[in-house]
């Protein structure tokens, strides 16, 4: 009953535009006051919120975001775009294919969709519009391909999921590789189908010199995913240290390219500070809510109910995917993840679902919400960049959601698509 009241209260506060973190905190604090009294509630709130962010692993998230910002500002993103242009610009779909391939490369260097949409996306939309592509098509493929950011490692949502669920972040990163490549491939096929009907001029085939120059130009940037994932896998550094090392490497490259001044770097750090404040205030408040939910016993009830009603892991994952897609309509993915994963985790464990598999399904399902109204962060960001209405973009992006959802379903039905690579490399034991 208390949980149901709390949920209604939370929805009301969110609808009234109370900031997400404060809404979570107020609801949780109210529940603590009811249970423990006003005298004890502040201490419980303070302790839970501070403990909620007391995690070495979580430090990786702001540094992966900073690495993405430095790459955008420091000319690394432009070089990656040039390489993608030379590699796939000439195939049917032209700059649409460049858009997807660029995002696949870029996703290997940063861990967030917004970084891809704002940095690479701005460049891609401008180039596509100048080449005569429909603005809504340019914006739609930019939005859809930006979802590769949190799937192909490194990934900020995977770091946070790993911290919440206690799953290996190295294994999660490896598990994101094949789904990310599948998503990229599915989006490229969709672009090629669109190219047969719409206006998608092909770019001229690059000369061998152009190809070599673009490859050499992008090569230093392309080493980032190798040393991030390879370094973690080889045990050279932790995910947090990998994020810091990626930042340092990006700073060195951007300085070498003479495209990053101190003033620009400090501006980027301020931007990351703002994002850290907004994101981790939610993480801290969710920890307080997690304390309330855990103590209420609702997680055990949910687990027992799931265990008695659902016996198939695949069916449970399908139900969870539907739940995630619905919640993703109204909540930012990381906030939704922090709220739902602790509640669903006991049931998931009860049915023997691998936590890494569950993590990939969770991250991908919730990130789809970035493209759907009314709370689609990428939708509004890209609409603003492309100077089109968000509702127009919401419709234009639908054909690209279909292949992403198909890949998601494939991962649900065939866990090895996610788990195959970490198992192959010995990062996960076979079950």
């Amino acid at each position, binding site marked *: 009953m208390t949980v149901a009241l709390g949920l209604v209260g939370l929805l009301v506060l969110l609808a009234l535009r109370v900031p997400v973190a404060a809404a979570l905190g107020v609801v949780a604090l109210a529940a603590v006051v009811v249970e423990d009294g006003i005298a004890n509630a502040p201490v419980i709130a303070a302790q839970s919120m501070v403990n909620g962010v007391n995690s*070495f692993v979580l*430090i990786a998230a702001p540094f992966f975001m900073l690495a993405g910002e430095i790459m955008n500002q420091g000319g690394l993103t432009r070089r990656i775009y040039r390489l993608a242009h030379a590699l796939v610009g000439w195939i049917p779909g032209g700059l649409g294919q460049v858009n997807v391939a660029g995002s696949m490369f870029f996703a290997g260097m940063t861990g967030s969709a917004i970084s891809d949409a704002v940095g690479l996306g701005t460049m891609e939309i401008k180039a596509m519009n100048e080449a005569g592509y429909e603005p809504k098509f340019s914006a739609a493929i930019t939005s859809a391909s930006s979802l590769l950011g949190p799937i192909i490692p490194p990934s900020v949502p995977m770091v946070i999921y790993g911290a919440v669920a206690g799953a290996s972040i190295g294994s999660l990163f490896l598990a994101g590789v094949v789904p990310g490549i599948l998503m990229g491939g599915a989006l490229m096929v969709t672009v090629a189908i669109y190219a047969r009907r719409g206006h998608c001029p092909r770019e001229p085939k690059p000369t061998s010199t152009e190809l070599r120059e673009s490859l050499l130009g992008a090569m230093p940037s392309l080493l980032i995913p190798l040393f991030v994932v390879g370094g973690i896998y080889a045990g050279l550094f932790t995910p947090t240290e990998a994020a*810091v090392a990626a930042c340092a490497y990006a700073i060195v490259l951007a300085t070498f390219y003479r495209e990053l001044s101190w003033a620009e770097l400090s501006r980027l750090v301020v931007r990351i500070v703002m994002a850290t*404040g*907004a994101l981790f205030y939610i993480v801290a408040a969710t920890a307080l809510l997690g304390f309330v939910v855990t103590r209420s016993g609702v997680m055990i009830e949910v687990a027992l109910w799931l265990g008695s009603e659902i016996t198939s892991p695949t069916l449970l994952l399908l139900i969870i995917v539907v739940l995630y897609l619905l919640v993703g309509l*109204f909540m930012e993915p990381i906030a939704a993840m922090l709220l739902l994963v602790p509640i669903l985790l006991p049931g998931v464990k009860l049915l023997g679902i691998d936590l890494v598999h569950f993590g990939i399904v969770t991250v991908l399902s919730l990130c789809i919400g970035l493209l759907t109204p009314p709370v689609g962060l990428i939708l509004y960001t890209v609409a603003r960049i492309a100077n089109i209405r968000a509702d127009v973009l919401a419709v234009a992006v639908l054909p690209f959601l279909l292949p992403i959802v198909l890949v998601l379903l494939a991962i649900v039905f065939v866990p090895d698509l996610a788990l195959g690579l970490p198992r192959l490399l010995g990062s996960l034991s076979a079950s």
Partner: protein
Amino acid sequence: MRSRLGLPEVVSIGLVAVLFAVLLAQVVLRPFGLGFVWAEEFAAFAFIALVFFSMAAAHHRGEHMSVEAFQEWAAPRLSPRTRRVWRAGLLVVELLFLVLLSIGLGQMAVQTWGSFAGSLSGFRYGWLYLGVLAAAAISVVALATQLVAEIRRAPEGSYS
């Protein structure tokens, strides 16, 4: 976005720089057997401080995430007076939460004053809670200032 940096922004930038330096040094020095035993615990504490000071910075600049769909639909249908009350109400809700949190942080600082961190010799847990309390207090001041400005604002002001 405001261009001048306030205290929480400056502290947060400093913490990012310190975290970056310590963790990078750890990566570089470890192969030579010169890693710091205290680095991980120090980084975790610095990150807690970063989270709460950056929270205060985001309060300063009004950059916390919220769901705007209902407000965008409802606001144009309301009178300017109702919209002002709504905005003030939002600030009061968050202020109340942060004031209670600050009280709890103060109590925790007192309770943990006698406890020391494992690898950071001489570091009292109370200092950590005091740091977080300072950040929360900055948030309270920022929100209170916004609330006063809201109350003083001319009633015919347009919704933003």
